[in-house]
């Protein structure tokens, strides 16, 4: 059993033996962002792992997240390495800090997710949108279906959230 799909002409194959990713992306297929939560210490973690990084317990449950957060840091790719991304430059590599579990278990820790900035209809963001986003921008998850029962999370500017006056961006545009 596997999740099969295709994204930007790249084939995607997630085998069921990769249990944690299979389950995470199956939930994405239902347009639900979930994180593993340890049955022992109850801390959530991201990305999917085979044990709890805080207490090493192997068992977890999948808890639904709000999918809301803020850009913690970013990179902006102007020279793509992968051929398939060349048509999409500049594109944003966002590190999104989710609202859940900020500064836990230690100060400066958080649930952080790597992802691309997208438009509200789940396409990679064009350059004018990229130029408006920086550290502090409030974003919300959205899903792009890429196969049967399979979707990937992308991040769009949260239209309903209160945004900072000016997100922090690299000083040279």
């Amino acid at each position, binding site marked *: 059993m596997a999740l099969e799909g295709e994204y930007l002409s790249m084939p995607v194959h*997630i085998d069921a033996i990769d249990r944690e990713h299979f389950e995470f992306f199956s939930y994405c297929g239902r347009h639900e962002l979930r994180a593993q939560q340890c049955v022992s210490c109850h801390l959530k973690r991201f990305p999917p792992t085979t044990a709890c990084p805080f207490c090493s317990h192997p068992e977890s449950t999948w808890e639904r997240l709000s999918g809301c957060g803020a850009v913690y*840091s970013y990179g902006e*790719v102007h020279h793509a390495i992968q051929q398939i991304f060349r048509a999409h430059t500049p594109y944003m590599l966002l590190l999104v800090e989710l609202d859940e579990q900020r500064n836990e278990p230690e100060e400066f820790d958080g649930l952080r997710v790597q992802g691309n900035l997208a438009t509200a209809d789940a396409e990679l963001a064009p350059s004018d949108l990229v130029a408006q986003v920086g550290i502090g921008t409030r974003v919300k998850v959205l899903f792009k279906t890429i196969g049967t029962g399979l979707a990937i999370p992308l991040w769009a500017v949260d239209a309903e959230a209160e945004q900072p006056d000016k997100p922090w961006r690299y000083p040279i545009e």
Partner: protein
Amino acid sequence: MNQELNASSSKHLRGKYAIVGVGETEYTRGSGCTTRTLGTRAVRAAIEDAGLTTSDVDGMLSYSYNDSTPSPIIAGDLGIRLDFHMDVYGGGSSIEALVGIAMGVIEAGMCNTVVIYRAMNGFSQVRIGGTGRGGRSALSGSSLFTRGIGLSSAGQMFCQSFMRHMYDYGTTPEQVAHVKVIHSEHAANNPKAYYKQRTTVEDVLSSRMIVKPLHLLDCCVETDNGTAIVVTRVDRANDCRHTPAVIQSVVGRCIKPRGDMHYQSGPISTVAGHYAKDILWPNAGVGPKDIQVTGSYDAFTFTTLLQLEDYGFCKKGEGGDYVSSGVMRLGGERPNNTSGGHLCEGYTHGVNMVIENVRQLRHDVDDSCAVGPDGKRQHTFEYGEGGCRQVKDVELTANLGWGTPGIGSAMVMARGG
């Protein structure tokens, strides 16, 4: 004195092992030969530099991203029968770690003298980020968070840590560009550097953007080269050709919490050196203020800066001031990467920075100064363009190896007696 800082303590093999030979091929783009040839030539050059013969070598270590030739083949080509060898996976931060392993296997009686090499066609075959390789295989679960979002090269992996450092501490693009400027000044005094042209801050900031915050000239050069070093016990080192570079302490591939998912554990502008420093300095019995030359890995301008901060050469957040102040320049208080490093001399996954510090400790860097009747260069300590790059009276150096923001290695070496 605290036992941990007692230099007479044998606890950490302090002062018992040395790098006695260094070897390298030309730093080129287009070696026109295999990594097998590069490795063989570099290993042979290092053995010869040590004043040893191939029969003195009985251990070998190498590292690669499966883009090189393993040691049984290199040793076989040179007619060396090995009692120990190992070829490990990895790039930056490997060389210091492998020095530690070499010390351990010799101490365990497994062999006596180890050559460590890295042979790579880093421009003409497998480029940084494995460009041209692996791009067509299906995306699995975890790679949907990497290749699936266009995150595959080193710059793409590290950029968020660099950007966050600017946000957290107000580090400016101009400050960071000084790393390239200063290393280019050093490279101008290194006849074997791939880029010998001096660079200005304006050159860096006007070069095209690769991945913000990295301009083209914030990124290191990609080159083809073989590099090697010879590690043995200090008592054997005294029979070798050159003054030994004596190993005072080593940290090997120390990692931040969460390892490759280091960005979950904050602050992300802090790197592995924050943890490695607590091994490096106590084991060496010295601190950053005692170090005269640093070799802080410059895969990017930022990697040099972040590591110097976290190893304690300046306060956290003041790396921008440190790298732009002139401290790291030849003639400054503590020059960094005097060969030009990865940004200018050539890309070796860290070996050339160790080689350079070994030569600094010998007081015999290969600059353009005239060679005297004793076969040694008559260093002028005039650091103008094309001039000397020997630092005066070097006794202690530090290498700070970078793997990722979350992985680092380090080594302190002293001039042997």
